[in-house]
């Protein structure tokens, strides 16, 4: 562990994590957040941060399938739980349908909110395979995006849901999918 004066008085603990189906064991100060552990200790830098105060949703990861803000979670709380980050979303070399849809439909511009947005979207589709537009908006309202204006993200989540569940009925009839600029 790296030398730190300020942390000398804080307890460093042996911590066990299950992340993306793999086991990790590290020694780290207990006051570090899960976000810091992921990015700095485990080099899983795919998880981003926009405020580190729980305001923007950028650092969202899944714990036992539920979206949480990793900047507000202490590692001691998640011992023995299953953590999923953007790095674990793909299955082998096949990206998750959400990742493909985000990449293909303009849902990622600068890409910085994308990992958090993807994790929230996965949690949504895992719990509701056929969300309508309002449900998608409601579920993802805690994840800010400053580039897209959200509409292409909505389209990507909708497209991924349809891919994952081909028999799904179409949404609630709102015409955001119809834009004259959209290639048919």
């Amino acid at each position, binding site marked *: 562990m790296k030398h730190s004066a*300020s942390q000398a008085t804080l307890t460093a603990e042996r911590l066990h994590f299950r992340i993306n189906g793999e086991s990790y064991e590290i020694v780290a100060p207990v006051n570090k957040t899960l976000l810091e552990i992921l990015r700095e200790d485990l080099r899983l830098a795919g998880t981003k941060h926009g405020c580190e105060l729980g305001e923007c949703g950028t650092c969202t990861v899944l714990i036992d399938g539920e979206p949480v803000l990793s900047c507000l979670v202490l590692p001691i709380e998640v011992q023995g739980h299953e953590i999923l980050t953007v790095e674990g979303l793909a299955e082998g070399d096949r990206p998750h349908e959400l990742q493909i849809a985000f990449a293909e439909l*303009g849902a*990622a511009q*600068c890409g*910085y909110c994308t990992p958090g947005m993807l994790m929230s979207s996965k949690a949504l589709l895992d719990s509701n395979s056929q969300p309508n537009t309002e449900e998608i*908006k409601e579920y993802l309202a805690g994840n800010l995006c400053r580039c897209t*204006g959200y509409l292409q993200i909505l389209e990507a989540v909708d497209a991924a849901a349809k891919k994952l569940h081909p028999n799904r009925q179409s949404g609630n009839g709102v015409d955001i999918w119809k834009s004259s600029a*959209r290639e048919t």
Partner: protein
Amino acid sequence: MNRTNYSVVGRSLPRVDGIRKATGQAIYADDLTLPRMLYGKLLGSRRPHARIISIDTSKAKAMPGVEAIITGRDLPVKYGILPVSEDEYPLEIDRVRFVGDPIVAVAAVDEMTAEEAVRLIEVEYEDLPTSFEIEEGLAGVEETSRIHDYGPHDNVHKQINLEFGDLDSGFEAADQVFDNMYFYSGNNHLALEQHSAVAQYGADSRLTLWSSTQTPHYVHKALASVLKIPASRIRVIATPVGGGFGGKSDPFPHEFCAAKLSMVTGRPVKITLTREEVFYAHRGRHPVLMNVKLGVKNDGSITALDFQSFVDGGAYGSYGVASTYYTGALQTVTYKIPAYRFRGVRIFTNKPPCGPKRGHGTPQPRYALEIHLDRVADALGIDPATYRKSILVDEYSMTVNHMRVTSCGLDECIDKVSEGSNFNSLHGALPPGKGIGLAVGSYLSGAGLPIYWNKLPHTSVDLKIDRGGGVTAKCMQIDIGQGSDSVLAMTVAEILGIDPADVNLVCADTDTTPIDLGAYSSRVTFMMGNAAIEAAEKLRKKLFAAVVEELQISEGALLNGTERLHGANGQIVHEVNGVPTGKSFSFLRAVELAEAKFGQLSSTGSFTPQKLGGPYKGSGVGPTPAYSYSAAVAIVSVDLETGIVTPEKVWIAHDIGRAINPTLARGQIEGSVYMALGEIFMEEQAFRKGQLQFPSMLDYKTPTFLEMPLVESYLIETNDAEGPFGAKEVGQGPLLPIPPAIANAVYDAIGARIDELPITPEKVLAALALQEKGELPRVGPNTLPDYQWPVPIKIDPVWYDQPPEQWVETQRRDDSKC
């Protein structure tokens, strides 16, 4: 003949960096970790305006884990993005000018130690009189309390008085004169990625800086000047920018400090700003108080426009001189204005420095002008769409302030959104509490002039073909989310007739890539696109020359156009009069033949805008190779009980020239609409004694999924004569018509004018209360500072009905021949 049967251009292909970003594989600046890396922190001023009496770093220095501490005396060279206002130190030496102004930088073994060390630093201040408001800085400031010792007087940074044509005659010829004030509030870019930089000064005395910056070239120049290291030994690499919007276009203190701390310690140093620090580093939208005086004939035609801007600059120059000119430059490129006066003044205040934000200095005047025209149309009894259509500039014309207009699809933009929204039937006819509004806008496809004076190219693209058929494209441009990587790959692929996936990009690295000035002023697609076409055409020529020999095609027939070679889908196809002859050649084989014939296949293309702009000081701000145009309609509902305004739907048409990638173009439009909605409804930088009231995302509200209305976008393709494949910008222009369209819709809904941002429920209720009392139902600024403007510079107009020779000579790009 202009080719339209493109094989790559015009297709909504996935963005080239999309899957990397969606899998967490894109590496942003803060994701970088180097061996033995230290973490830096800046100490910002706690006072809005003060002399620094002493700085005591002894306690911090004594802390275990603290490796270096630097102050302003370690970096005593001023810098600033504009050569006319180099007024910042990386760390201020003896004076601070806003809360947050950096004073000390610490490097420690981890971030927490650095933070604690910063807390232990003691700074003794001697407070100086403060100046927070526009009026305070215009007059009566004591010499010793001036925020800067340059500028014409008091806290005035820049003053402008330009008069084009005969203003007095213009107003005399008017049947009616409309005079009103407007205020556009300041706001932050709020890119989700906080600024971050990693510096590594090696034992070989070479410095590398990885930074989240939109302008690696300008950072490179500034580092060389401030650190006093030859530029040849500095390498700046821009990492993928996690949102820019103009907020990462200046060189920043954390970049200089990371570099200096690395030089002092011999170890890599990373500095990432906190969200609060980003709010103070700022460089966001300038708050602007404006007065619009417009003379019109009874038919609505404009006889004269007199525009005044009072620009609240914050504590430093930044891009402010350009921003101030921009508040007066583009009023003329949408409507015929025969006489025009622009007076603008920028005032230093003890607040975070303002700078360029999406639209740079033009959303504020556009907001004022478009509400103003809504008033005129209302008074003249003409519907706002028909009215605007009757006064539009002509394509390929010249404005009174010497701006050259080329392609202009504004008329069609207005038609599209009017038809789409059924504007003409709904305007003035919706039930109380519901309203529809229209506005237009225009923006640059790149500034006509570079930031520092030179005659050099603004951008260059190097290409190299590998024997395996891969094409490497190098350019200093940086993708900030706007999709410029995709534009580069698709442009090269189109010309060479290959799959964009076979184009490998090396970008934004001052060591390995040729110049591009940066991701600002919506310049990249237009300028880099043209450079990429030139480079790719050079290589195509070699490939075709090699193929001609092999296929035994006569070069004469190719030259006179009856026969052509056409590259598409990895094949070079021979056609006679547009019909394939069956003779074809694979790209890979052509590469082999061409390399055997010519040697290594490399090429360079560059782009320098032609000389534009009038014969007057300040004419460098406003000209561009091509203006984009937009029109928007918004429908809002106003809750008459609570004053809450909800945007229900937005229609927006944008003259993009040509959409190289329609999905990405639509993303820019929708993102612009979103950002504008944040500005008009909720984003506001509020201060208390120089302290930001909301330096957090919790309190500084931005629209979420739930606040975003439906947006119907239309791409209008006018095929600009000089744009790459006819393309113009789309990254910034679509923001411009939204705030005034919303304001006009609110007026249509409640019959009251809100003439200042943001439109809050309180203001709506205040306007309704005035209406109730029978008073003028308007909320907005009522007084204008009584400012002694400098003597005007009078400039003869160029009449818009005389096309200058250069356009007549302009031939539309013919890339159909080989």
